[in-house]
């Protein structure tokens, strides 16, 4: 296969869904969500490693498919195809039209992230995926879904900020932002620890790893079937993939951080078991399974960070782990959905919509209100009062009468001529003196 053709194919994997996301461009095609997957399917069918360099894109970017990403791509294609099928259920409504758009945007982001070969490219696609998925969660949903979306969005922004900082750290030491070069550049740099923590926080937020899993539970609780099916394979999997791609595994040994991560992972697994037991809702089972699995992942990641030899081996395994995680969660979700359809009693009703906002939503709200009181309202008020004072000063009668009286007295003959004489005398006197 020649390079042009492969480049077009690679580009069209994320590009075609993006194009179809414009409602005008898909109005004629009957199965837009499925058709959008076609380039990816073709790419899977051709068993060769492709890559394309896009020096004009952003700061110079690229796409590639290799041995590891092929598995991830396969997982994604299967999950997306299934979700697309589930999505078709509601008939032609404006909501469903929007939904299709968000679906395709998310799809493009998710596939692009898998193929990206550099930090900025990955960042871009995962951001696209994130915002698209937010739309998928929220669109036409209930109160609970909207709250879940809101939480997800807030965390997404925080995560992007953290990752942006990480990117800046890399960019400060190297101009080449492809994964390999970045790893090599950042490994010996002084701000390695900052970089590692930013990356870990960012992707932990994106993947909903305990204890930063705020968005995970509400999302699982309220997502519609198609979105629920994708939860494991798309946001979580992309988050985990990001951690694997961005961390310089195999280049560094950081035992302290590794140990901390391992403890965190164990904690996550314990939390999943205990909290899952106490919750006792069948619908929430995939959520706790996800927390458990990501905990396991973090434990292994910790081991990989602690020792560079383990790290390089772990890199390969991690991809497979992500693939199976995505599949597993999807199967679990579908299975429970099927159970629920058979016997609705088996699933306890979700919490009612009117429940109070969770703490992580209340506190920032209060902080913002406080900020409004302190920071932004006082200054204009101050200025307003100052202006009012100035206005009053201008209106004071003393000024007015001084100006009026001064002018009136200047208009009098006697006064004016006296002044004139004085002036003449003063000039003569001053001159004669000097």
């Amino acid at each position: 296969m020649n390079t042009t053709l492969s480049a077009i194919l690679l580009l069209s994997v994320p590009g075609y869904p993006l194009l179809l996301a414009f409602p005008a461009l898909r109005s004629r095609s009957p199965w837009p969500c499925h058709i959008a997957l076609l380039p990816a399917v073709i790419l899977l069918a051709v068993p060769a490693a492709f890559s394309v360099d896009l020096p004009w894109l952003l700061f110079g970017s690229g796409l590639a498919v290799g041995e590891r990403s092929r598995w991830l791509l396969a997982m994604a294609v299967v999950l997306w195809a299934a979700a697309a099928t589930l999505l078709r259920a509601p008939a032609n409504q404006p909501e469903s039209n929007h939904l299709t758009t968000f679906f395709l945007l998310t799809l493009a982001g998710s596939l692009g992230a898998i193929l990206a070969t550099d930090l900025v490219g990955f960042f871009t696609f995962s951001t696209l995926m994130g915002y698209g998925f937010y739309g998928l969660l929220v669109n036409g949903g209930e109160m609970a879904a909207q709250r879940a979306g809101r939480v997800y969005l807030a965390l997404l922004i925080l995560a992007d900020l953290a990752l942006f900082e990480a990117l800046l750290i890399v960019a400060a030491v190297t101009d080449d932002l492809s994964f390999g070069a970045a790893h090599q550049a950042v490994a010996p740099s002084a701000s390695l620890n900052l970089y590692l923590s930013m990356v870990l926080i960012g992707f932990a937020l994106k993947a909903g790893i305990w204890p930063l899993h705020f968005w995970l539970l509400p999302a699982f609780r309220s997502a519609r079937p198609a979105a629920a099916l994708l939860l494991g394979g798309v946001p979580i999997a992309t988050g985990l993939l990001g951690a694997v791609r961005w961390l310089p595994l195999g280049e560094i040994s950081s035992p302290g951080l590794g140990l901390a991560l391992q403890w965190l992972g164990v904690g996550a697994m314990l939390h999943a078991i205990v909290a899952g037991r106490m919750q006792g809702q069948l619908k929430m089972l995939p959520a706790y399974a996800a927390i458990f699995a990501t905990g396991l992942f973090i434990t292994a990641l910790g081991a990989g960070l602690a020792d560079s030899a383990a790290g390089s081996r772990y890199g390969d395994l991690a991809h497979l782990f992500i693939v199976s995680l995505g599949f597993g969660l999807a199967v679990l979700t579908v299975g429970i959905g099927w159970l629920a359809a058979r016997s609705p009693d088996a699933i306890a009703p979700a919490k009612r919509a009117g429940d109070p906002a969770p703490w992580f939503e209340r506190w920032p709200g209060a902080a913002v209100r406080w900020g409004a009181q302190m920071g932004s309202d006082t200054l204009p008020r101050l200025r307003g009062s100052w202006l009012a004072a100035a206005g009053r000063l201008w209106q004071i009668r003393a000024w007015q009468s001084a100006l009026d009286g001064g002018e009136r007295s200047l208009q009098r003959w006697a006064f004016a001529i006296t002044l004139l004489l004085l002036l003449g005398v003063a000039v003569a006197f001053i001159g004669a003196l000097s």
Partner: protein
Amino acid sequence: MIPAVLYALVGMGLFALGLFALIVHTHLLRKILAINVMASGVFLVLVALAARTRGAAPDPVPHAMVITGIVVAVSATALALALMLRVSAETGRAELPEEPLE
């Protein structure tokens, strides 16, 4: 020399007197007269100062100036009087308002 200085001092006195009258009087005719008195004072000063050196013939230049000045003063007085008549016809009083009309 002595008479010349005397004339000059008298001229100065006339000037001051006219100035005083100009300030004090409100009637326009009096003001115009005051201006004329002042002018006469200045002319007197000019004529007096023409005798610059004792015994020598007086300098003719100030005299020429005085003649010119008188011409100017006459025409100015004529204009002033005409204007005064118009003012009194228009306002009924031959006085200037202390403050400008609003």
